[in-house]
């Protein structure tokens, strides 16, 4: 598929029927969390869409995000990568290696300057550029260089979006997010550790379909997927509202599928599509399998004071502080009380007998 072909033409060339294309559009609408009534519009847009060049940069990351994407079940990743987008550079997925790979990147930049989409996974170390380099180029430099010619940047995963685990206290590499370094390009954050696969492909498809970035929240996340909290869409929410909580992982409440809030669930403050889109082809999501939400799509989720501690809980031992405080207060109280008693005793001692002759003012 040449870059001048529209997607519709390309698919038809490959012998994909109109019916198949419509099915693809229906799945795409669902993936983009758009209502089914949008399917004709999507079909019309996709038909005319030209496949963009995509450069994928991986920095301090675990490849979990790529793994997640390649597990993306709809449409098939091959289809996505080779039919829908032109993935011109991706360490893990490209066949080329060494100088050839870097040359592919440079060519893609040159040929599509100002038009290509940049996808980043992983955080960028700033403490020492040597901590992470590709072909001798530091992550910071590579990001800045590639970002310059990008039409938009998608920060995939919590590391690229917020710094993620490398950024966690004490952050030895001085890891930062893409948005910490790039200020002059539209950035879409697709956080999660990893993000839900269909969310990654949904965001890419949205960009492809409409040629624009989707509506974003204050953390630059697409509202279509991150607009509601896990808590708001959680099927266990009725138990929360009724005050029925699992107190442990194997107690009666856990067996009955009660709310996991008391086990530290971050659902109430975590914005993601897990509760509806779910994982593994819509099979389940952490809460459904009995584990509290870790809040992985939120900034600094690793430093939230413990996965098994609710967000409103003290992070330090308050009980001991309380005991000491009461002790100290009691001691101070006794000391001050003694001063008061001394003052009162002094007043009693200073008491002059009041006689009937003292009652008139001036006596």
């Amino acid at each position, binding site marked *: 598929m040449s870059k001048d072909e529209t997607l519709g033409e390309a698919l038809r060339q490959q012998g994909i029927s109109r019916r198949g294309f419509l099915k693809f559009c229906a799945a795409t609408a669902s993936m983009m969390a758009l209502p089914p009534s949008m399917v004709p519009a999507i079909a019309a847009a996709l038909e005319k869409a030209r496949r963009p060049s995509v450069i994928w940069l991986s920095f301090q990351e675990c490849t979990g995000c790529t793994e997640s994407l390649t597990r993306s079940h709809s449409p098939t990743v091959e289809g996505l990568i080779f039919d829908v987008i032109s993935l011109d550079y991706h360490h893990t997925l490209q066949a080329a290696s060494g100088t050839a790979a870097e040359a592919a990147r440079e060519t893609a930049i040159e040929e599509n300057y100002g038009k290509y989409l940049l996808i980043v996974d992983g955080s960028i170390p700033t403490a020492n550029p040597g901590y992470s380099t590709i072909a001798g180029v530091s992550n910071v430099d590579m990001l800045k260089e590639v970002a310059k010619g990008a039409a938009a940047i998608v920060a995939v995963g919590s590391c690229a979006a917020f710094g993620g685990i490398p950024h966690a206290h004490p952050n030895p590499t001085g890891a930062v997010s893409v948005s910490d370094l790039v200020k002059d390009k539209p950035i879409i954050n697709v956080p999660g550790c990893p993000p839900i696969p269909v969310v990654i492909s949904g965001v890419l498809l949205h960009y492809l379909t409409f040629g624009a970035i989707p509506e974003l929240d204050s953390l630059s996340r697409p509202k279509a997927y991150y607009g509601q909290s896990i808590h708001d869409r959680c099927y266990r929410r009725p138990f929360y509202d009724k005050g029925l909580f699992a107190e442990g992982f194997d107690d009666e409440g856990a067996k009955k599928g009660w709310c996991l809030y008391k086990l530290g669930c971050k659902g109430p403050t975590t914005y993601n599509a897990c509760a509806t889109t779910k994982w593994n082809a819509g099979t389940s999501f952490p809460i459904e399998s009995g584990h509290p939400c870790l809040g992985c799509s939120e900034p600094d989720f690793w430093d939230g004071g413990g996965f098994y501690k609710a967000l409103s809980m003290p992070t330090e031992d308050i009980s001991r502080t309380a005991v000491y405080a009461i002790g100290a207060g009691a001691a101070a109280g006794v000391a001050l009380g003694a001063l008061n008693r001394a003052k009162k005793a002094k007043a009693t001692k200073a008491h002059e007998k*009041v006689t009937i002759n*003292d*009652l008139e003012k001036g006596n």
Partner: protein
Amino acid sequence: MSASLQRGINAFKEQIDAPVASFFSSCVRCGLCANACLFHTETGDPKYTPIHKLEPLRRVWQQNYTFWGRFAKALGLSRAVTDDELGEWETLVYDSCTMCGRCSMVCPVGNDIAYMIRKMREGMAAAGHAPEGLIGASQRAVTIGSPMGVKLPALQAQIRHTEQETGLKIPVDVEGAEYMLLLSSMEIMNFPEFIGAIAKILKQAGVSWTIASEAFEATNSGIQIGVSEIAAELVERVVAAAEKLKVKGVISPECGHAYMAIRWEGPNLIGRPYSFRVVHIMELLDELREQGRLKTTGKESQRLTYHDPCQVARRGGVVKQPRNLLNMVAEDFVEMPETGTMNWCCGAGGGVSANERADEIRLKAFNRKKKQLDAIRPDAIVSACSNCRIYLEDGLEEYGMDMPVLSLTETIAEHLAGTEQTGSKE
């Protein structure tokens, strides 16, 4: 700071104790006490809010007995209480408070405001901010033996008169009598019939009693003006006489604050428990009734209500006894709305009656009593405090109401079985 102010502030510091500190700590300025005070409800003036009357005392507490108050004082952030302020508060503390304690019953956090007013008056008097009327009464009480200046010969004249009228011997200075009767000056001067009524009842019940010529006065100006030394001196006279006559008990007559002084404050004023018991006449009569030693015939057919004297009922704990007694002689006994420990004051207690300056506000506040009476429209009011009786009559007259105010003891005496005076007064 002038010597008198110093003495006043010093007295405040002496008086503040744990209850006072807990009360001031708890006040949330909800203002509920305002509607419990007849001086506020009948004037609508916020300055008569009970807790506000304690403001100088509160400031002394805060500046001296709280850590942050001490701190603020050390930094010069708080204003010391001035003599002018005490002067300003004089009318609030003495003229528009009868220490009736109704606010103490209402305060949602449990502040005993009357308890604090009593303490505040110690400092006010020491600072020279007591009203002229009460100063005069106190001076007469100490020098003459009676706040109204009633001397022994006057009592002796009333005794002779009573003896003639009733044909009964009124015992004076009888050693070994069971009870020693105290009388308030008001009874001696205004209601001498009381002596005869007591004589009749105690004769029927077979109770031996006496009046002490050295200590017949029941009232105690000291606790009204707020000078413990004077109050103690007056109590000591009674105690000395009771001990000298070796009586088993002292009868507090129909007087509210006299009962408070001799029954509850007395031992604390002189710093030791009594060797005798103190009873209000209502308590004694009810005991006799219970023992079957008090028998009456006939009942009053008129509609009667009972006015609880604050110091006897709310502050003294004598609530059910007068009702037991009244039920013996009243056919149509009706309670006022808000009665017993929630009764409204006549407006003249706590030294207000001795303070002519307070006459105007006292009569204004009486409107509260009028409303209470209007709700039930009795033919007559019965009470067990001669001060209440006099000022109820005064208020009724002021408001153009025609309603006799009776002594419960006298009413009982009129219905004593086996006496010539049976039958009801129609």
